[in-house]
């Protein structure tokens, strides 16, 4: 290795620049997207024929568990995090986040969690609990191997990463805004990010405790979830869904913010009902905490409980509907440009509405009793997560790619991918609704020909491959653009928010002159007034000092990695408490690095 490439690696390893960290999040998440997508294709291949034997029994369980866990924690959340990292400081006119090195730390422990989850593959101990890890499916008695331990520890670490990041971004948005950027002048993506961080730091502690209890059950012999010894499995469901439902908003709110940026830009109109969209976002977040038991209508909580949670759930449709109409009215009468980000944003509205409508259907307990555990539910939440979250993320990706990499993506390729994705996802997930109504349960690895589910399953599998083809095109488009793409100007879309007022990609210090904000969509109005000078104004040559890199976030993560390693070895040798010294050593090293880090100056002295 030459010294040049070595120092490049070191500079990424020690970076505290939010833009680089954003890119690292994005690259890692796209890598996991390939893995999670591959698992989805395997599942679909297994279900292509009745009585197929490609992936049976526990292998099938492992595939859907890893698919779900990967897609939620390692793809959608980090893709959202990539946008938070890259864009939030730019959109609020800041030079970095509130805690730049902590930001690097969250990335590294996210990576650690992702790696840990996938190490289980190579040890033949893949988690097979489902992404929800329902006790007692996940207790020692039913899953004696290390799969559930890998799952629990990885999700715990990923949760820690998310929690730290949420504190960081919450403080950044409240405290690092440019002059004049009052809360009700912030771009909508910043707003949805703020609300998302609130959801994270209030819901993740609950799963932290639930996972801790599961770990104590599995490793230290307690019986929280063991009914034979006075435990209660329903408690797990409650704790899990108190986290799990807000988690859905954690996944979908940032993409909603993204399309609230994309739609105004390509409609050449300000967002319709800006404040109303903000208030309905807040309402969604609040209500998101009061509906968790709609995942448990068939548990037997009693009619009154079901009634209360059913009503609360149906009410969620109100702020959601408000947002959908605001997006539609944003386009109404605008001069629309059908670029790839715009198409994805429009796709989001349509697909998300379909997913939302089926969501309102199983808000009703009697209907839910029919849908529960059937493919209808799988169809529903994939419309929300692929038709919603992934579509929104794709809109954001195509919209901000020129800003992040300084190159334009090929529009024809991007639009072809959009068409493939839309066709593919409707083939796959609409079929699931039908096969679900015909009675096919989810999480089964096969079915027999007489059950009559073959046709729709095959359509679903074809659709999955069409989506896969779309993603191949997507990766080809990225590669082609990075190599041969034309250079992007500072403001290629004639956009409205601050990040477009500086060069593409932005300089390390973001803003040479700190912007002063006078109204919402300030940059847009400055462009109307003084034209292209609005861009030049902020892109000076002045050198600004930026946080220097640090080794400690990375070293601290290495130390932290010893803690799960110790626990995992201990689970297989539960009488040898000395093994836990590995974890203790990790904890000690972590402490040492954190202290060194705390006393290391952030800026060059």
């Amino acid at each position, binding site marked *: 290795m030459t010294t040049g490439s070595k120092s490049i690696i070191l500079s990424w390893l020690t970076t505290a620049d939010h833009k680089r960290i954003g890119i690292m999040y994005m690259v890692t998440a796209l890598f996991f997207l390939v893995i999670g997508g591959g698992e989805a294709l395997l599942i679909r291949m297994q279900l292509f024929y009745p009585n197929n034997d490609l992936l049976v029994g526990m292998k099938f369980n492992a595939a859907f568990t890893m698919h779900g866990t990967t897609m939620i924690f390692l793809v959608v959340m980090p893709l959202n995090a990539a946008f938070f990292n890259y864009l939030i400081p730019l959109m609020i006119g800041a030079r970095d986040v*509130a805690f730049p090195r902590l930001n690097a730390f969250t990335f590294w422990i996210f990576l650690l969690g992702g790696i840990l989850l996938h190490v289980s593959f190579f040890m033949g101990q893949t988690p097979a609990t489902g992404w929800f890890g329902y006790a007692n499916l996940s207790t020692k008695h039913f899953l004696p191997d290390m799969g559930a331990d890998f799952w629990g520890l990885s999700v715990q670490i990923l949760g820690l990463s998310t929690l730290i990041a949420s504190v960081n971004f919450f403080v950044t948005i409240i405290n*690092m*805004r440019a002059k004049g950027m009052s809360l009700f002048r912030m771009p909508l993506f910043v707003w949805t990010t703020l609300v998302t961080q609130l959801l994270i*730091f209030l819901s993740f502690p609950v799963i*932290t405790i*639930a996972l801790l*209890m599961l770990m104590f059950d599995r490793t230290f*012999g307690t019986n929280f979830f063991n009914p034979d010894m006075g435990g209660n499995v329903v408690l797990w469901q409650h*704790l899990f869904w108190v986290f799990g439902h807000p988690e859905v908003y954690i996944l979908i709110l940032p993409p909603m913010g993204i399309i609230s940026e994309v739609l105004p830009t390509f409609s050449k109109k300000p967002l319709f009902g800006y404040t109303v969209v903000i208030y309905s976002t807040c309402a969604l977040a609040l209500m998101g905490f009061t509906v968790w038991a709609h995942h448990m209508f068939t548990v037997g909580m009693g009619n009154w409980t079901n009634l209360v949670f059913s009503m609360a759930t149906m009410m969620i449709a109100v702020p959601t509907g408000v947002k959908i109409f605001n997006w539609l009215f944003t386009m109404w009468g605008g001069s629309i440009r059908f670029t790839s980000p715009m198409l994805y944003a429009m796709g989001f509205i349509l697909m998300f509405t379909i997913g939302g409508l089926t969501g309102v259907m199983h808000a009703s307990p009697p209907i839910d009793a029919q849908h529960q555990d059937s493919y209808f539910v799988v169809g529903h939440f994939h419309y929300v997560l692929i038709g919603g979250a992934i579509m929104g993320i794709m809109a954001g990706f195509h919209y901000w790619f020129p800003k992040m990499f300084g190159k334009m993506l090929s529009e024809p390729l991007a639009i072809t991918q959009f068409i493939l994705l839309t066709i593919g996802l409707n083939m796959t997930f609409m079929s699931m609704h039908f096969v679900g109504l015909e009675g096919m349960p989810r999480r089964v690895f096969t079915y027999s020909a007489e059950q009559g589910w073959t046709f729709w399953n095959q359509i679903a599998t074809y659709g999955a491959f069409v989506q896969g083809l779309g993603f191949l095109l997507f990766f080809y488009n990225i590669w082609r653009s990075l190599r041969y793409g034309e250079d992007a100007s500072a403001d290629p879309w004639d956009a409205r928010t601050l990040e477009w007022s500086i060069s593409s990609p932005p300089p390390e210090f973001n803003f040479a002159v700190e912007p002063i904000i006078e109204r919402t969509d300030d940059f847009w109005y400055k462009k109307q007034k003084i034209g292209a000078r609005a861009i030049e104004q902020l892109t000076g040559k002045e050198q600004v000092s930026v946080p220097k890199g640090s080794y400690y976030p990375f070293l601290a993560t290495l130390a932290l990695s010893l803690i799960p390693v110790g626990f995992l070895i201990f689970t297989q040798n539960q009488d040898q408490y000395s093994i836990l010294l590995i974890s203790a050593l990790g904890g000690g090293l972590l402490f040492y690095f954190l202290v060194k880090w705390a*006393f290391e100056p952030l800026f060059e002295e």
Partner: protein
Amino acid sequence: MTHETTTGIDNRKMALWVMIGSECMLFGSLIINYLIQVHQIAGVENPDLIRPAQVINVPVTSLSTFVLLMSSLAMVLSLNGLQHGDIAQFRKWCFGTAGLGAIFLGFQAYEFTEFYWEGLGLTANNFGAAFFLLTGTHGAHVLVGVIWLLIMGGWSYRTSFQSEHHSILLEVAGLYWHFVDVIWIIIFTVVYLFVLAP
């Protein structure tokens, strides 16, 4: 290189308040788990099961509660000293706080071993498990606080420590400490005093 923040509040102070918000849910989960487990064990008829009233020792814990309460006083006195540039007062009470915290941990260690000898180990029953999980998590928080304060106190002997710049750091540590104390106020009532309910 300190940057003016939008709200005028130091970033670290705000971050700690956000963390406290998060901890409310963390300890909320632990407390509700404890209450549910105690409720469930109350419905089981088994003379061998160890129940809260048999092991919980209110007088001893009242003492440790008092110690932790006084540590909060020591904490504010320490911060008040530093904010007024009185390094001696700061140091005395900073180490005092850490010392009182350590005494509290000693009480907890005594309590845990007592329970163990009375037959309530971690795995004896779910009341015990939930008890250890709740008070153990709290104890771990106290331990972190003790170490944090010892570092702050120790740092003050170095030349790099400047009372006018670094009092904010003690303020943040103090917020953490008080919050841990405040959680104990709840735990003391819910776990200990409620046991004596007539």
